[in-house]
């Protein structure tokens, strides 16, 4: 991993609260997916959420920009509480970038159009300016030369980097990553992780659901372990990996690190 090269000069965690989740519960029908989640994320924090499949980690971060609705408790993002009020939801969504497991690029639009669509229609930025911003971020994820191709012409790793650039074009204050490398071939995982590390170095507030424990150790300032819809353990990465407290965590770590 890129531990040695990690530049921590801009990675400062402020006291300002970016996301606060209080006693949040969610059900799918009668199935209780998320139970009493309490979590505070300060600006500049880089949090990795891990846990076995079905533990509710994706659901949790999808609740943060209300792709999933919570039924009890409170979620406040950037000072805006998520309720059924559509105005608040759209406001939060435009402040929070989201990167999906399957990229979800728009296949009928070019890479550049993918990146400029939301700035033009949501932020009402002039087209020229939006294109300049888009090219800036495409250069940053190192694929400016692909700007006029369609997503179907790119490799998985390139597509995921475009997806990150697309989110960044909205100038979000928080980035959510939902298993961004799980659908990628091994050799493409690194290029996406490098992009994410670079983002972390610039002080972006990030919440990342991932099984890349190397990334967690290198970048995260906090690791959260979830099981059965609950937060089982959270700690700073060194402690979490070297000295896990709960038996469930120990078992999980032995399974994913043990091969």
């Amino acid at each position, binding site marked *: 991993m890129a531990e040695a090269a990690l530049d921590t000069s801009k990675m400062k965690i402020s006291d300002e609260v970016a996301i606060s989740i209080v006693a949040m519960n969610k059900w799918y029908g009668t199935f209780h997916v998320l139970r009493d989640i309490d979590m505070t994320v300060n600006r500049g924090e880089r949090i990795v959420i891990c846990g076995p499949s079905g533990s509710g980690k994706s659901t949790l971060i999808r609740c943060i920009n209300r792709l999933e609705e919570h039924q009890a408790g409170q979620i406040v993002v950037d000072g805006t509480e998520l309720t059924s009020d559509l105005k608040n939801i759209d406001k939060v969504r435009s402040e929070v970038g989201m990167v999906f497991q399957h990229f*979800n690029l728009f296949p*009928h639009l070019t890479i550049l159009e993918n990146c400029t669509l939301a700035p033009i229609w949501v932020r009402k930025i002039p087209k020229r300016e939006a294109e300049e911003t888009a090219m800036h971020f495409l250069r940053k994820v190192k694929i400016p030369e692909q700007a006029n191709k369609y997503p179907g012409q790119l490799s998985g790793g390139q597509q995921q980097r475009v997806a990150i650039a697309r989110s960044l074009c909205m100038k979000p204050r928080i980035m959510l990553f939902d298993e961004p490398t799980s659908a990628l071939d091994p050799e493409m995982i690194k290029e996406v992780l490098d992009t994410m590390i670079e983002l972390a170095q610039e002080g972006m507030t990030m919440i990342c659901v991932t099984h890349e424990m190397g990334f967690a150790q290198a970048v995260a300032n906090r690791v959260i372990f979830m099981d059965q819809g609950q937060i089982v353990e959270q700690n700073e990465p060194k402690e979490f990996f070297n000295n896990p407290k709960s038996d469930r965590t120990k078992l999980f770590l032995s399974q994913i690190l043990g091969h």
Partner: protein
Amino acid sequence: MTAMQETFVRSEMLGPSAPPISERGAVKWARSNLFSSPLNTILTLLGITALFLLLQGLLPWLLNGVWNANSLAECRAIVAANAGEGATGACWAMIRERWHQFLFGFYPSAEYWRPVLAFALLFAALAPVLYAGIRRNILMMLGAVTVCLLAALIGLGTTAPHLIQATVLMAVLIAVAVWQPKKLILFTLLYPAIAFFLLWGGSVWSPVVAMLGFGVLALVYRFLVGRLGVVVATGLGFVAACLWWMFAQTPLAAEINAVLPLGLTPIDSDQFGGFLLAFVIGVTAISASLPIGILLALGRQSDMFLIKTLSVGFIEFIRGVPLITMLFTASLLLQYFLPPNTNFDLILRVIILVTLFASAYIAEVIRGGLAALPRGQYEAADGLGLDYWQAQRLIIMPQALKIAIPGIVSSFIGLFKDTTLVAFVGLLDPLKGVTQVVRADINWKGIYWEPYIFVGLIFFIICFGMSRYSMYLERKLKTDHR
């Protein structure tokens, strides 16, 4: 262990070489397509025999065809004289004499330039829709239309003033297409009023005032959209436009007409017939059913119970009823529900019900396209902060419609052919209506094949054209590189 192979390292990569003769060209094609197995060989020979027999029967009939005659009896006499007793021959003379009825019904012949001009302008209106943004194609289409229009008008013996007007109009459209191609869509929006005025005639002010109703809609929408949102603003705008059409339309149009009378000879709906009728119904229903179908498909997927129930109910009801029932409703039942003495044009009634019928089918086809979209597309659109209508317009619909193109075009083709069913409510469709009129003539009594072949051929050309266009569109929009 002694039999260890020698190590091998390739020093030079092999280049590609040409395949053997049996894998190339006509030999390969015939082998793999016609004679790949004993069964296929037998089937090929049988097929060739069948084709030969078919042509043996058909070719003399086509080749002996007669174009110059005044009656079926005369046709037969000419065929007998040319090809000998007992020979068969087509009697195309009937088409030479009656083609105008197949095309225009009983539309007065002095006014033929009006439907012809309307038909040409239809393509000018379609050009920016069919070839969005491709200026070269739009210009080529406009050029071809202009040439065909002038040839048709001259062929019909149109008077000089109308000829000049048509030329100037097309020249203006081409000029717009050259300098302001985006503005051409305005002509598309105005086209319904222009076509209505050209076809039915009457005062020019009626369609103008009717178009102002849409202006009222736009005005109300723009005034309210900031405060009440897209749906409510559109709804109220629509109500305002309806009020305009109900109360302001007739007196205002009459008022202006009294001051400045301007118009064309009015033509009654009874005089419409043939392909003119098929096009009026088909084109209107096709262009109106697509937006209605989109809204119904979205309504069916809506979270709002009332909207969903209404959409599902409408779609299922309409799809459960034969089109002929709807046509009878149009011609008979609707009269009972309307206030007494309202003279609601029969063609208009038929158009409305055919449109509703088609939109239910289109809605289901589009729903198929929506269902084929991965959930991730909705989530990505939501995640970027696009609102419902933006997400639908920019992300969901472009993809869903693209997936649904073959189904949509199939529906359109079916709809266009179904316009012949209006024969059952007494309208003069090209297939049954006009053919019956022609065959009622003592001169052409007993003619069967020729009118049906003629009408069938025109339908085929139009439907085949639509089908080819849809394939072109699919190729053009193919961006997923699967």
